[in-house]
């Protein structure tokens, strides 16, 4: 094929035209609440031409002028073929936003095409070079799709929590925020959750339960993991494997017997009950993670400690544990996350609203005629702490404390 390069430019441009227009249109809709129907056909055509112009100008001469020119062409095409309404909105509806939309469309199209078509000639291309372009396009699409896929639900969650039921019902597409209403009105759902629905308590309970679970889990799993990974004793291999099996026992299988027994012992509907169950279910994971980490710690460090006159316990406390801080942090984070997010046992065990965890509290919001924004606000309240801690710790975890202790 003599003109593979041109063909690729056209197809790549068309794809980006379509995708960028779709995303811009939907975003416009969600931001303004006006229903923008993206004119995909016109956008594809504009994109294709844009791509072709870029390639035609050749990589060497692809200067600012080339980009501006290509963008102008795309603008003319998209306007002409959509009958001057690229979002199928009359021009006098949210004109400012429409303008921004077009601008973003052209900018994003130019950016995507410029990156994807870098180095593409008009004429024949080797298989290697073709595939390089395919991969760029695929990756680009991947970024767009994944980001939307992941971010959209969270975006909707937050935005919904800031609206009122009637706004939501009136126009489910309008996720804009009306800042003029004032802070208290904007955060009304949150205020109500904390004042009327007891969410302050739930937050406290969740925090206490999660932190206590973390502490208990570490207290149990650190010695266990150390023993399994470092000490020699009969049955060690068996034990270290079966840990993983226990980790796989489904909670739902445990629920019925635990429910029965805890009911009779009066442990159901109490935080003590949760604080027995949660660590028990997290210890195997924690033990497994820690054991792996302890194995990875250079044995020489501990041997150096032994030579320096420490006992085993001394070695664990003074050397292994300080060195395992990153692992302890990540295990803690993981266990915290499990405990914070845990739903089944909280749901089955807790009846008394004074000791609801957040998960349990949010379920309660779903059960009666509670407005939806409250439910979403509850979801936000349950999500923010764990996400916050996750983001904060993620950075923490990177520091490999052992770096530099072994080898140069």
């Amino acid at each position, binding site marked *: 094929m003599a003109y593979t390069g041109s063909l690729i430019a056209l197809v790549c441009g068309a794809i980006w035209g379509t995708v960028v227009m779709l995303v811009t249109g939907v975003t416009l809709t969600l931001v303004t609440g006006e229903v923008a129907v993206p004119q995909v056909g016109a956008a594809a055509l504009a994109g294709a031409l844009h791509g072709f112009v870029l390639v035609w100008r050749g990589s060497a001469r692809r200067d600012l002028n080339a980009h501006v020119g290509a963008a102008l062409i795309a603008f003319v095409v998209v306007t002409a073929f959509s009958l001057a309404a690229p979002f199928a909105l009359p021009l006098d509806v949210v004109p400012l936003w429409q303008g921004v939309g077009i601008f973003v469309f052209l900018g994003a199209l130019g950016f995507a095409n410029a990156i994807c078509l870098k180095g593409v000639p008009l004429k024949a291309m080797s298989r290697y070079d073709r595939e390089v372009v395919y991969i760029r396009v695929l990756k680009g699409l991947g970024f767009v799709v994944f980001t939307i896929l992941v971010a959209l639900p969270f975006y909707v969650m937050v935005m919904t929590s800031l609206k*009122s*039921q*009637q706004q939501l*019902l*009136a126009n489910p597409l309008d996720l804009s925020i009306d800042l003029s209403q004032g802070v208290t009105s904007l955060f009304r759902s949150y205020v*109500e959750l904390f004042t*009327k*629905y007891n969410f302050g308590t739930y937050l406290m309970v969740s925090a206490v339960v999660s932190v206590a679970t973390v502490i208990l889990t570490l207290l149990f799993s650190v010695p266990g993991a150390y023993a399994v990974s470092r000490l020699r004793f009969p049955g060690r291999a068996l034990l270290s494997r079966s840990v993983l099996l226990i980790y796989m026992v489904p909670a739902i299988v445990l629920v019925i017997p635990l*429910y029965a027994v805890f*009911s*009779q012992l*009066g442990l*159901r*509907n109490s935080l003590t009950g949760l604080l027995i169950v949660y660590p028990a279910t997290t210890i195997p994971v924690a033990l497994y993670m820690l054991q792996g980490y302890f194995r990875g710690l250079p044995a020489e460090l501990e041997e150096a400690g032994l030579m320096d006159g420490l006992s085993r316990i001394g070695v664990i406390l003074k050397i292994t544990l300080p060195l395992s801080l990153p692992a302890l942090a990540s295990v803690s984070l993981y266990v915290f996350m499990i405990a914070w997010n845990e739903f089944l046992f909280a749901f089955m065990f807790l*009846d*008394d*609203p004074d000791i609801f965890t957040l998960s349990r509290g949010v379920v*309660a919001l779903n*059960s*009666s*005629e*509670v*407005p939806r924004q*409250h439910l979403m606000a509850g979801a936000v309240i349950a999500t923010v702490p764990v996400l916050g801690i996750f983001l904060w710790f993620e950075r923490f975890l990177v520091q490999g404390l052992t770096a530099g202790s072994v080898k140069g």
Partner: protein
Amino acid sequence: EGLRFWTTEEQPERLAKQEEMAAAFKAKTGIEVTVIPVTEKDLGTRATAAFAAGDLPDVIYHPLQYALPWAEAGILDTETATEVVDALDAETFASGALGMASYEDGYASVPVDGWTQMVVYRKDLFEANGLEAPTTYDAILKAVEKLHNPPEMFGFVAATKIDENFMSQVLEHVLLANGVTPVDDNGFKALDEKKTIEALEFYKAISKASPAGDLYWKQSRELYFAGKAAMIIWSPFILDELAGLRDSAPPTINDDPTSKALASMTGIVTTLSGPSNPDGAAWGDVRYFGITNDADTDAAIEFVKFSMDEGYLSTLSIAPEGKFPIRRGDGENPEKFTMGWAKLPVGVDRKAPLTELYDEATIERIVGGLDTASRWGVTEGQLSLASKIINSQVINRYVREFIDDERDAAETVAKMNAELAKVQ
């Protein structure tokens, strides 16, 4: 150590009212009452679990269907309930409501309030199209035919989510309307094939005029409020919302969420009749105070008495639109509570008495429903079995499968009868 009181009225405003009442009670008797909200859907499980753990509360505010099963299971202290009713004078209670809770030679629990289910319809459209009020299967089907025009307008919004109580209620209402019942004086009675098939075909017809998917009260209300449904079945709790008095469930038919327009366009029917039962029937629900077997009996008696007497209007004021008084008055003034109730304001974010929102005829129809209200097993003395039949959700499941065209009507009835016979 005070009393523990479980209530299914768990919305914060309603909870607050109940807590107020508890405070008033404490002021009077010195007995502390902890009000514990329980989601109605979980009530059965929760109570059973608490019973198993020996951890029952003292008093439970519960719907009709639990009264007899719990009495049998040993959860409720029926003797004490009887004692309370006697002390308050059985004469002052609406006899139907009391009858529904009668157990052995007393009462399983103390009836508090009640309501009847309603067909809520767009009076304006019916009038414009010259349709009769939807009081019969036939009238409904005619209206559906005329008005069904999706997605702008659905003829009906039927309940199809099988694990929601709502579907059980609507189905029972529809079946009762055609005189279908699964019990007689001796216990289970196979569903009458002809009548049941009529009801099933009717239900299928209105389901086909509904949106796809699992529907329950939520969708019914949303669609009707959005002006996209011609008819729905709902409880009277909708009455204030219809008039735009509650922000969390606003009518969206026009831009004004506080508009009373929809209320004025709405007609209400409580008694529905099928072809084989021209008299028709209304579906009523009554709520009770149950005193449990683990209760501190004396204190519990005090509390229930208080709530049904001095505190009765407060009890009703929790949601007057859905809580019609069952105790009409006391010894001195037989109309005391009825009168008081009528003046209670409804609504959440804005308030107004019902009399301001609906014309008198409508209100009369609403309240009058309670007189003809019935449930399976009430007249037969088989409420307990009927409750179990309902709780087993067998009917819901088979009806749903019938709607989904999985088998024909006759086969469905046969299957249902076979499954229901197993329920004890």
